[in-house]
């Protein structure tokens, strides 16, 4: 069942009146002293920060992660065996005319 047009209008009117009634509820005024006391605890407000200040803060937030990443990569490079890579490089630089792909792969 859905409401007829007339019922919808009636319902709207009833609910609107009921809603407006809520505004008439009596509520004591706010305690301004309490509120001002709470606001004083926040201290004076800071004006909107400049873009560069925000950017700088953001960059410094990334610094620990970046340092960790550098340390991790250094560790990985030290652990890796670079000798074979050096041999290939040496072959390429010194004997390019005799160098073949089969030699490179040790076949």
């Amino acid at each position, binding site marked *: *069942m859905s409401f007829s047009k007339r019922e919808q209008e*009636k319902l709207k009117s009833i*609910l*609107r009146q009921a809603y407006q*009634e809520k*505004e008439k*509820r009596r*509520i004591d005024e706010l305690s301004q002293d309490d*509120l001002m006391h709470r*606001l004083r605890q926040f201290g004076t407000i800071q004006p909107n920060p400049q873009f560069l200040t925000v950017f700088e803060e953001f960059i410094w937030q990334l610094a620990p992660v970046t340092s960790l990443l550098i340390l991790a990569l250094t560790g990985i490079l030290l652990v890796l065996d670079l000798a074979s890579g050096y041999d290939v490089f040496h072959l390429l630089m010194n004997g390019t005319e005799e160098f073949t792909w089969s030699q490179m792969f040790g076949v």
Partner: protein
Amino acid sequence: MDNDSCGPSDAEIVCQVVAGSLNAFEQLLKKYQNHVLRILKKRLPYDQVKDTAQDVFIRAYQSLPTFKGDSSFEQWLSTIAVRACYDFWRKHSKSREFPMSFFTEKHQVWLEEALSDQSSQSFHERGLQKEAREILDWALERLSAEDRMVLEMVYLEGHSVKKAACLLGWSTANVKVRSFRSRKKLHKLLSKPLKHRRRET
């Protein structure tokens, strides 16, 4: 609630507060507390109004540097108050910490009689505001925070879609669609118990 012709304007007071004069904020508090209370009284449970009003003024104080003066201070504060209500209902719909009201036989009878009543007599004259308020609260409790806010602003308060969108910070299209859907949900919610009743009788 325009600026007093004799005193400093709202924008001047805001400048003073931002410059460090916290006491100047008290003038804004005095001037607009009734306005904020009016917004909150309609939208929140009675016992939540004062606490939320305090939160609204705290939020306003902290956000004062963002007040550009494009709109009036009253409108800017209204936006904060409306969004505080939205936050309240969003939080409430997740926690369900308030008891839900019931749609009783008494409400069904009342609604059926009220809808079938041919006279234009308002329920003020019939002294039946209590039932209407209970029915309204029951229905609103069953809507999502988003639907509830839009329904209150557009359907119950008669604000334009544009104004509701501005106060909620949503797109006009979003408010328009939600307004239509929430009205449908409300009708469905209220017509369901009546349908059962009509079937039984």
